[in-house]
């Protein structure tokens, strides 16, 4: 009876013929992987070297080029859009106003940063001085800029055709019914007058504000045209569901330099057009919230 020696068995296993079970093991079935797996492995190997052999560099290069092109394109578009916006703001404020009226929003104007608002007293004096000047209502800032730089620019589009005036915004209409004493007769004859002026005489409003908004009496020709224009205005109101922004007067004032606008408000108040002055003041405060108001206007605010 012989006993097995594990160490000897191990040494035989490590021999070249793998010991007593080596030959038997070699006679076990020689199972091979399925052909579908062969195909899958070889396919994967082939795809791997086709996928990233060399083309990897080209792809990186293409990605870089594409990114750079995208950045340049975006910058170009942004520059173009910026140019267009600037041109539109400077060249065609009237057309913009007309568009804004059509779309029912107030065009956003760049807020003019005041040159270090001086002390309230000095500012009040300056405003008083401006308000006291006859015809103190100066050109809007944009108009000034246009006058200062009349270099060859594309011509502004012709004034918008005499569109019927859009109705005033709800807030403005609620507050405007307080008629100016001097306007009473006109207002009675033409309840839509101020609205007509908004649309039809936008350019004229700048040159002759005294006639249109400052309480000038109606001319006979206007009276003759009254009923026709009134029906136009009604038609327009019926077509536009939402009331557009306030009067052209108000929008024009928005473009004034802050101290000039305040002087205009003071002048309106002194002329007895308190409601209009309040509207102007409210809008002024929205656009220039940091501007310190003179005492007289603070009282008006209350």
């Amino acid at each position: 009876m012989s006993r097995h020696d594990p160490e000897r068995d191990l040494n035989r296993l490590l021999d070249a013929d793998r010991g007593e079970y080596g030959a038997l093991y070699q006679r076990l079935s020689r199972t091979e992987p399925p052909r579908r797996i062969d195909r899958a492995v070889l396919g994967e190997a082939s795809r791997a070297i086709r996928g990233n052999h060399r083309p990897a560099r080209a792809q990186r290069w293409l990605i870089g080029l594409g990114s750079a092109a995208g950045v340049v394109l975006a910058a170009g578009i942004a520059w173009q859009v910026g140019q267009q916006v600037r041109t539109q703001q400077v060249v065609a404020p009237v057309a913009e106003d007309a568009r804004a009226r059509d779309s029912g929003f107030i065009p956003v104007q760049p807020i003019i940063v005041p040159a270090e608002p001086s002390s309230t007293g000095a500012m009040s004096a300056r405003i008083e001085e401006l308000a006291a000047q006859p015809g103190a209502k100066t050109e809007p800032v944009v108009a000034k800029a246009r006058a200062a730089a009349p270099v060859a620019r594309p011509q502004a589009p012709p004034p918008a055709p005499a569109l019927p005036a859009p109705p005033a915004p709800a807030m403005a209409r609620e507050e405007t019914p307080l008629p100016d004493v001097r306007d009473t007769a006109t207002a009675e004859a033409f309840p839509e007058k101020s609205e007509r002026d908004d649309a039809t005489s936008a350019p004229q409003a700048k040159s002759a504000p005294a006639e249109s908004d400052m309480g000038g009496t109606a001319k006979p020709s206007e009276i003759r045209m009254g009923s026709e224009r009134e029906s136009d205005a009604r038609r327009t109101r019926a077509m536009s569901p939402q009331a557009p922004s306030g009067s052209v007067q108000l929008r024009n004032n928005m473009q004034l330099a802050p101290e000039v606008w305040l002087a205009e408000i003071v002048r309106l108040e002194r002329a007895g057009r308190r409601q209009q002055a309040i509207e102007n003041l409210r809008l002024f405060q929205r656009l220039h919230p940091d501007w310190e108001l003179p005492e007289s206007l603070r009282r008006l605010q209350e």
Partner: protein
Amino acid sequence: MPMTPGADCLTLMPMGDERTDEELMLAYAGGDMLAFEMLYRRHRGTLYRFLLRSLRLRADADEVFQETWSRAIAARARYRADAKFTTWLLQIAHNLVIDRFRRARPQASEEEADTVFRNLDAPEEDRPDHVLSEFEQRRRLQLALEELPEEQRVTFLLRMENGLGLEEISEVTGAGRETVKSRLRYALARVRARFES
């Protein structure tokens, strides 16, 4: 002749390539598909049988076989010629097998093998391999392999199927040289016990 992805490896004519496994792998990493086909032909059978006998289930073996090659393909750029290709490939396969074992069930204890050793003292002349038919001997070896604890089975197969020495088995499995020897001894004892039962 390079193979197209859809072609069958077995339809290829035998390729006489004198290059070593390591050279072929480096050539494949450089874009030589023919080198990979050669390499695959050399190792597909032994790798598959190692996996099939380790995992015992054909479905598992298929899956791990494909995954092993897949990882080798993905890692081709990191392959260095100072590592023997067979050892490198079997390391990948072994890691996947161990993962599979861990997911499947807890490792069998090696204490069982001690019992086998104690009962192993059978007379030489009564050894069943002298009297069993060839078919029966192969069947018993197959069963013995299947019944081995996982670590012993893998170690035994790396020796029997892949012909690795102690150092190489140690490198593939990450076990120490003495541990490898111990596992081989236990495995042999269990196989013998199956034959003598």
